[in-house]
């Protein structure tokens, strides 16, 4: 009892300041022991996170202000501070900006397609017969559960220039000849295939989460809106969407984070050596660090990627905090 009662803190979800949570509401006369208990419970978790996440995170920052290459790695030379050199070098490089734009376009495209298709399928699932629903769910879960690396391998096979089923099937359509077409000859086409792979893998999570959310939309509200003369779109726009908003924000933010972090899909699809036209921020940073052996510049790029994500994360955090406060 005691402190536990206040966890639920009848706190308005939107409150931002972190005051001692509703101590005043603690029922009088209850034990107030265990102020240290929660910290004791948290200790192992925090310890691990600080060691393997906190420290590297700090290291990432310091690294990006140093000169750190092969000789520093082997300890032949000490790492020396170079100020903003790495950043100036990266930011003044045209290729970097191309990569940034490419990454944003790629991530935005993946997120938009994922969310729109996910929402459409979730709504569709409410309207189909039970057996169709079961079939779709099985297919969705199968694609969701597929290891990314397996999915990537399979898509590589589907889009194979010579033996891929896609070229063969599409060429059966009148006026289409894709026999021997190499989807990866150009960056935009190849990235479109990779985007398809990303969307295919991401839609199930969105559908399943949104379906769960849709069951929470009160039928009476929809009914009332319909009686008031709202059409299908009106009901969706003014009833369903507002209720699902927290889930949608959460899903969109997560998708942005995941899609900005796409790595194995590109890396494996391009046989571990993505061409310049295929580089996204993640592979570019990897390339700088482990191919060119400039760990410092790789870190600078990684850090810039993280900063780029921070804006999105801020929105997400607010949402999750509200969720954490609701119960």
């Amino acid at each position, binding site marked *: 009892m005691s402190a536990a009662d206040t966890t639920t803190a009848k706190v308005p979800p939107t409150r931002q300041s972190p005051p001692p949570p509703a101590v005043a509401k603690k029922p009088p006369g209850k034990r107030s022991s265990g102020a240290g208990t929660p910290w004791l419970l948290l200790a192992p978790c925090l310890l691990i996170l600080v060691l393997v996440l906190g420290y590297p995170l700090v290291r990432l920052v310091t690294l990006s202000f140093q000169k750190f290459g092969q000789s520093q790695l082997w300890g032949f030379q000490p790492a020396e501070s170079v100020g903003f050199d790495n950043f100036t070098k990266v930011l003044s490089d045209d290729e970097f900006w191309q990569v940034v734009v490419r990454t944003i376009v790629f991530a935005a495209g993946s997120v938009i397609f994922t969310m729109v298709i996910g929402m459409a399928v979730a709504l569709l699932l409410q309207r189909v017969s039970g057996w169709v629903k079961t079939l779709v769910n099985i297919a969705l879960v199968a694609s969701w559960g597929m290891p*990314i690396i397996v999915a990537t391998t399979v898509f590589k096979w589907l889009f194979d220039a010579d*033996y891929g089923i896609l070229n063969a099937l599409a060429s059966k359509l009148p006026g289409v000849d894709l026999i021997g077409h190499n989807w990866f000859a150009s960056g935009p086409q190849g990235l479109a295939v990779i985007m398809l792979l990303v969307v295919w893998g991401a839609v199930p999570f969105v559908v399943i989460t949104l379906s769960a*959310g849709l069951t929470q939309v009160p039928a009476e509200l929809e009914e009332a809106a319909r009686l008031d003369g709202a059409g299908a779109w009106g009901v969706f726009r003014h009833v369903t969407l507002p209720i699902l908003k*927290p889930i949608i924000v959460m899903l969109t933010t997560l998708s942005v984070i995941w899609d900005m972090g796409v790595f194995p899909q590109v890396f494996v699809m391009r046989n571990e050596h993505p061409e310049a036209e295929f580089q996204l921020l993640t592979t570019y940073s990897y390339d700088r660090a482990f191919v060119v052996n400039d760990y410092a510049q790789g870190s600078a790029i990684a850090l810039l990627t993280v900063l780029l994500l921070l804006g999105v994360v801020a929105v997400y955090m607010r949402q999750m905090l509200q969720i954490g406060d609701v119960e």
Partner: protein
Amino acid sequence: MTAVNAVATTGTGSGTTSGTGAGSTSRPRRSKAGWNLLGLLVFLAAGFPVYWMVNTAIKPAKDAIDPDPSLLPTGFTLSNFSRALDIADFWGPVGRSLIVSLSVVAIGIVVGMLAALAISRFAFRGRKVVIVGILAVQMVPLVAMIIPVFLLLNDLEQYDKLTGLILTYLTFILPFTVWTLRGFIVNIPKELEEAAMVDGCSRTGAFIRVVFPLLAPGMVATSVYGFIQAWNEYLYALMLLSQKNQTATVWLGNFTTKHGTEYAPMMAGSTMMAVPIVVLFLLVQRKMAAGLTAGAVKG
């Protein structure tokens, strides 16, 4: 309070068939057959890559490299599977993946459970900061961390060791475990614990006798899910282990050599990696959807 009944529950408004479907506004009323047809198309699109993987895996290898492939299975053989097992040591990488994933889950669930309890059942100064912190670390892209993690493990002489990999996997399993377990815990009414305490249980006793049994399914689901995530990880496994210590995901890369790719055995290898995971996934995903979205929508 917000037990989201995941996929199984039919949507509340499903009986009233008015097309709310995005893009179908022009035809507000359609028979169910139309929706079903659309649903089947979704089924085909989502399921086809999986079907094609299995189909390629079981057909004779020479049929896999037919420029005009047949959509239906052309035969049944297990030779691709035995070829896949031969290509490089298969059980070594699988064994290593098992060790890593199971250790990560075991540590993650114990440590994560304690932390989840702290943030869901206690009010304390700094709780919000902790929640933000745990959520924030989920935001850090793994790829961004690979360079410093590589250097850290290098310094600790944990490079190319499974223990190093286990440690790094905890960074993404732990926050996830804490957050989902929190979701399961808050779905258990506190009144149950309080009642037990009124009846004379200590706080710990109440937890062990009342909450723990109710939480067990959620813990199993979280464990399985965490296991899958650890099992599927690719980048760290590739970067932090050498060829001789590779794990199962990296093992799949062995089918592509300078002389080309052996697609049929590769699909057999993919099938062997995917099927157990997908089955596990099927078992727990409903539970997970509920845990992940707990509190997302007010019930």
